[in-house]
């Protein structure tokens, strides 16, 4: 046989990208000798995530190379001995999360996602007064006025291309007549400039003040007279103009990103958005849209909800699911020593890593994961949507995408590793 390796190249179309919550699924990716290149429709995040070459690493016990089998046995021992494990990170796909749920039930664990702080801000609003929401295709085809509140959506690089300045919209004649508004702290409003150069409306304020502005808009659309000259530094006339637009639009959307509202009681700001939307719906159509769900966040939250009844964060230690969005945060249970072992899972990236805790720690991460400590067990895992097929849920928690296997990988999936742990327990 010819020793020179033959160039083996395959091109995959319509590849779904699991690396942010809006799940673009039109990527074209070439696999040449098991190296990937994004040929079309990749944002910077997708390109760096798909094109990273997996390092060759072995499973490790306290930094020492061991076989996968030994690592799984050690993980098993830790979890068996543990009274209350914390299973956190939860960067995985649907089947990974299904096995996490089984393991949590079996081991009496507490569950939280790496983006739990953002996730629960929305959950608290849903559980308090509810909301009216919309999804990406509706925004794309229907929206006339889009208000970005506390986010510029820049963490979701193709959001504008796909649903704001999209070429085709079913219920609009032109794609450039969408009104864009930003409310927040020095948001990047460049993407909000329409194809003809029309600039968006920008209401600059501190993140803490967004709620105040939205409440004032709520008051104005309900006909109240505000006896002030300005609110949070914004002239009342500017707010009145915006309120009129909100009332007269046929389909308006308020977009927020719960994970980016890093201020105390951000859920109350989100509730302001939602209650304003509800009020506007008395006479026109308006809806909310939340950007989030990165790194399997929406998947973890949804699977947890259908299998346990509760969204994250849940504790299985009493033999039944016990839900507490605040108490069972990774930060709290580590600080309060409510857990005596940690299993950290992130199969999507090596940027968000396990906290260093003074309890036995198992890390299931990408092979290139660099930690500032040596966990008791490290198990390299494959990446959903690159190394194995799977399913993942989009930020709107309605659409889910099938993930493809587009590369051979020597590593096991989170699902397969956890299944082995469960079998040995």
């Amino acid at each position, binding site marked *: 046989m010819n020793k020179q390796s033959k160039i083996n190249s395959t091109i995959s*179309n*319509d590849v*779904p990208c699991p690396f942010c919550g809006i*799940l673009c*699924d039109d990527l074209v990716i070439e696999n040449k000798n098991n190296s990937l290149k994004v040929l079309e429709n990749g944002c910077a995040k997708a390109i760096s995530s798909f094109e990273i070459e997996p390092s060759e690493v072995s499973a490790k016990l306290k930094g020492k190379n061991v076989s996968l089998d030994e690592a799984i046995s050690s993980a098993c021992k830790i979890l068996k001995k543990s009274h209350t494990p914390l299973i956190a990170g939860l960067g995985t796909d649907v*089947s990974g999360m*299904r096995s996490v749920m089984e393991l949590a*039930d*079996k081991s009496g664990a507490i569950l939280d996602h790496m983006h739990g702080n953002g996730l629960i801000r929305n959950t608290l609003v*849903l*559980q308090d*007064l*509810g*909301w*009216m*929401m*919309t*999804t*990406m*295709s*509706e925004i*794309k*085809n*229907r929206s006339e006025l889009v208000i970005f509140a506390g986010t510029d959506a820049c963490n979701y690089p193709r959001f504008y291309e*796909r*649903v704001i300045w999209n070429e*085709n919209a*079913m*219920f609009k004649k032109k794609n450039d007549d969408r009104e864009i508004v930003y409310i927040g702290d020095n948001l990047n409003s460049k993407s909000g400039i329409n194809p003809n150069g029309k600039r968006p409306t920008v209401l600059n304020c501190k993140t803490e003040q967004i709620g105040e502005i939205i409440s004032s808009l709520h008051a104005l659309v309900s006909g109240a007279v505000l006896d002030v000259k300005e609110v949070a530094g914004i002239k009342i006339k500017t707010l009145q103009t915006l309120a009129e637009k909100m009332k007269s639009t*046929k*389909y308006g959307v308020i977009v927020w990103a719960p994970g980016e509202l890093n201020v105390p009681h951000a859920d109350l700001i989100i509730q302001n958005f939602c209650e304003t939307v509800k009020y506007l*719906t008395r006479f*026109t*159509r308006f*809806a909310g849209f939340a950007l989030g769900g990165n790194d399997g966040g929406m998947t973890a*939250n*949804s*699977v947890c*909800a*259908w*299998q*346990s*009844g*509760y*969204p994250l964060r849940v504790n*299985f230690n009493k*033999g*039944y*699911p*016990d*839900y507490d969005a605040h108490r069972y945060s990774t930060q709290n249970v580590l600080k309060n020593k409510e857990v005596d072992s940690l299993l950290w899972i992130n199969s999507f990236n090596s940027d968000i890593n396990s906290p260093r805790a003074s309890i036995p720690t198992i890390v299931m991460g990408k092979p290139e994961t660099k930690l500032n400590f040596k966990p008791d067990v490290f198990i390299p895992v494959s990446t959903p949507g690159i190394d194995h*097929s799977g*399913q993942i*849920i989009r930020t709107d*928690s*309605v*659409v*889910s*995408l*099938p993930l493809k296997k587009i590369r051979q990988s020597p590593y096991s999936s989170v699902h397969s590793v956890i299944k082995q742990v469960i079998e040995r327990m």
Partner: protein
Amino acid sequence: MYTKLTNGKVYDPVHGINGEYRDIYIRDGYITRKPSSNVKIDQTYDMQGKIIMAGAIDLHTHIGGGKVNIARMMLPEDHKADLVNKTELTRSGCGYAAPSTLTAGYRYAEMGYTACFEPAMLPANARQAHMEMADTPMVDKGAYAMIGSDDFFLRMLASKKDQAAISDYVGWIINATQALGIKVVNPGGISAFKFNQRQLDLDEQNQHYGISPREILVALMRAVTELGIPHPLHVHGCNLGVPGNVETTLETIRAAEGMRMHITHIQFHSYGTEGDKQFSSGAAEIAEAVNKNPNISIDVGQILFGQTVTASGDSMRQYAGHWHAHPKKWVVMDIECDAGCGVVPFKYRDKNFVNALQWAIGLELFLLVDDPWRIFLTTDHPNGAPFTSYPHLIRLLMDKSFRNDMLSTINKEAAAASTLSSIDREYSLYEIAIMTRAAPARSLGLKNRGHLGSGAVADITVYTDKKNKEKMFSKPDYVFKNGELIVRNGKIVKVVQGATHTLRPEFDMGIEKSLNLYFDKYQTMSLGNFKIDDDEIIEHGNGKIIVQPCM
């Protein structure tokens, strides 16, 4: 390997067996004829004093999909009083109105149900609906794809595409979403709500498309017929919950023009406007129309008193109903140019005139419709009540004195406004076996389920006959799934995974050309990724796909 159930009293309406003592033989998961006398029987169950029926089938229960999961997430208070511990065999979870998938599967099996069908699978959300159903153990499942307010379909109707093309689209949807039937909810109304219309009667037009619900119903009924889909078009009609909607429902029955139509949770569509409160029972008129039109089947959507949550694709009517939310929180969504949903928690109160009359209307419908083959026992779980209240509902139907006792406790004016006290009918076990087994299986085209004849899948439920039918139906002695004993004395003894039932109607794949264009221009996922592979359902190891034949 043969299993024999002996000395039991068998109710098998498909074979006209009405409480006769028969032996039942099971081999390799199927019911089989009596083997020759030299064949060894491996296991015999003495069913003396027991009632044997096929496993029960619920053809309308919201067990999986986005809106159910919203209900779960929204209502921690629903679960807190009904937590379920893990056991050696079963996983932990919780109820009550919006139970976890695992708990729902266990509870259905423990009640003697062996198959459950999700009636409102949004195509855009079908993948998740299947994931949730896959995580619902014990029972077989399947789902009806919900169309009729999706823009692709409405554009077809508006541009006067011929019926063949519409049928191709419907066939494509069934295949792509792995559905077992087609449902329509507030035909065209979910779309109309997105254009800020707040009501839509049968002959009113969706203002954007200029299409009426009647046109949508006719097009979809024809498609269902042409594709040979066994289950008739599953219709959640216009004006749900609106006083006076009895007229709309009667007109909807006429709109069927003799074609087969299943009208679901008809109780919510049987309201008149008589009396001081301008809210009255239309049950008698509806029952008369159902009795006269053999092409019509219905399920009731009985309400029972207490806290529950309403989860529906009908965003228009759920928005209108949100003022009555209890507790005061609710969700309405516009979804993917495809559909919508609304989730509104609700408490039915027995001393409230409207709620009490709703209760009576449902029972009147059950008792006034003559043919149990065309009326199915549902509470539209969880919309009228959680499915766990079925045994109570069966007692209300089978026990007149119990029913009248209950009637005497509800709102007095409502009791007086209802004809319920004057109805003597009591359902027999045979009729219960029809409406909870034989009839739903027949309606769905499940030929080897819902009966106990040779060749049937051995999904079998065994009860002890008790005077108190609620007790009897709450706790079967034995439940067999595919011939395996899975429940003993109302408790799970073996965890199994049910199959997913689907159809593969034939249609012209040429429809994908226009669908591809549409997806590329307007959707936010590609056509290829929209379709659900068999592997996605099977791979997880949670069961298999059974493709039911088309007619």
